[in-house]
């Protein structure tokens, strides 16, 4: 394919695929915990980190990881308290994050609208080989953590009190989720941009769970859909010359709509054929319990 004869397109493809696989693997826990928009909030805070990096002439990716990790930990500690004022505190953090970012980017000497837009909406085609290595390594760390700790993370997201009584290190795991959210947001800002990253964490999960019955199958399907959306997004964006991040997100949402319509149609067709589900409760329970 002529599109991929350029190195920068190959790098864009690799970056997009890695992020398309990683973001839903983390997102499935965020959706389960009903924190679908947390990625968006952390993205806002990350912009302040980008501003700090540009101002200090450091790598904006590294300062963004640090600042957004601090922001994510702050959000988690507010959530843990469970106070209603947490809602307001989150709003302060989000808007403070984006406003601070825009101001700091403006103050830096290499400020330009294009620079700001690259972080807000992504610019994977300008990714350098060194950037790509950072993206791939960090994404692999996040991916391994999400897969290896799945039973424990599932337990804390599904029923936090039960996890506590199981003696799990609930706070450490919550903070791990917060920090991996920050890392994922920051590496994905090159691909889809800070304002759209949350979509890549959440939309494939929303699509997958219309078809799946369990958590593991939802996670696997969401990762597959994320991979599909980002791969086809790179191809489509290169072919019709649209913004890469927006194209990936539009494709992910198109998949969601297609599956939603198909699932609704299937339900409508099936409903009359299914007998009332009364049979399950009538079975006499078998009771054999060995301790």
């Amino acid at each position, binding site marked *: 394919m002529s599109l991929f004869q350029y190195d920068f397109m190959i790098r864009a493809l690799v970056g997009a695929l890695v992020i398309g696989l990683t973001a839903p693997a983390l997102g*499935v826990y965020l*959706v*389960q*915990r*009903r924190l*679908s928009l947390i990625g968006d909030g952390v993205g806002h805070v990350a912009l302040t980190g980008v501003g700090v990096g540009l101002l200090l002439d450091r790598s904006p990716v590294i300062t963004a990881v640090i600042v957004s990790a601090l922001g994510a930990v702050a959000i988690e500690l507010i959530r843990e308290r469970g106070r209603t004022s947490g809602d307001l505190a989150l709003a302060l953090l989000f808007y403070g994050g984006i406003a601070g970012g825009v101001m700091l980017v403006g103050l830096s000497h290499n400020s330009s609208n294009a620079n700001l837009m690259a972080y807000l909406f992504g610019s994977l085609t300008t990714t350098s080989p060194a950037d790509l290595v950072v993206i791939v390594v960090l994404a692999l760390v996040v991916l391994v953590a999400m897969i*290896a*700790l799945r*039973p*424990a993370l*599932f*337990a804390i*997201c*599904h*029923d*936090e*009190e*039960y*996890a*506590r*009584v*199981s*003696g*799990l*290190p609930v706070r450490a*795991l919550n903070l791990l989720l917060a920090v991996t959210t920050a890392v994922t947001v920051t590496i994905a800002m090159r691909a889809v941009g800070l304002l759209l990253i949350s979509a890549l964490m959440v939309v494939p*999960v929303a699509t997958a*769970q219309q078809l*799946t*019955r*369990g*958590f*593991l199958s*939802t996670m696997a399907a969401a990762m597959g859909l994320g991979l599909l959306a980002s791969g086809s997004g790179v191809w489509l964006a290169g072919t019709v010359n649209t913004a890469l991040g927006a194209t990936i997100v539009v494709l992910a949402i198109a998949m969601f709509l297609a599956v939603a319509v198909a699932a609704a149609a299937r339900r409508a067709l099936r409903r009359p054929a299914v007998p009332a589900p009364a049979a*399950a*409760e*009538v*079975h*006499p*329970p*078998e*009771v*054999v*319990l*060995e*301790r």
Partner: protein
Amino acid sequence: MTPSNDSVISVRHGAVAYDGRPVLRDVSLTVTAGEVIAVLGANGSGKSTLIRAILGLVPLAGGSVELFGTPLRPRSRALRRQWARIGYVPQRLGAGSGVPATVAEVVGSGRLARRGILRPPGAADREAVTAALRAVGLADRAADPVATLSGGQQQRTLIARALAGQPELLVLDEPTAGVDANSQEAFADALRGFISGGGTVLLVAHELGPLASLISRCVVVHEGRIAHEGGVPRPAGHHAEPGHDHVHPHGPGDEPVGLCS
């Protein structure tokens, strides 16, 4: 007083307050291995708070709690080993999560205390999950999403999750509240199996229903204090009839007096 070796739970002068409002005042309770204790009381009496304090889910304002002879303290290393000996059955599955989960996946969480968070599940874990599902009569629903189960079946999923960890102590918060008669019987049978294996049980209930015959001691909590401790009387009148379905609306301040002698 030092607790004897078979002391499973020991609460001494336990007090809990929410925002300065006392909910439990000076409660002392000792549970020894093999006992089956029902904590009874009206809504708002503090009975659920008592077991939540025992499990460390609400902080104590005063007094002390020991589990298997180990003092309950936040992030205690010594205590971490004791959690695997406890199976907790909450009142209901949380508000429900955004992502579907199968019955077997939820029950599998019960293995974490025993296995630790880093080791992947193995054959022993799968066997324990299957055995626990069989014990509550849900073996055929293992692959179904929990959200498609009835309230009673979800409650049985939660007891299976606790049983899957092969605990020595089961702590249950209102296990039969709002549960259909079929599930109540399945629940009682599962509990009977656990008790005959030498297990210890602490359960909170508004009324005992089919569980009454299993209880060895009743504790009645009233306005944050233990108002009564004793045995369980036999159900009388139409309550004693087989198949009696106890259905009546409960109002606040409704007390299950008469359940304990």
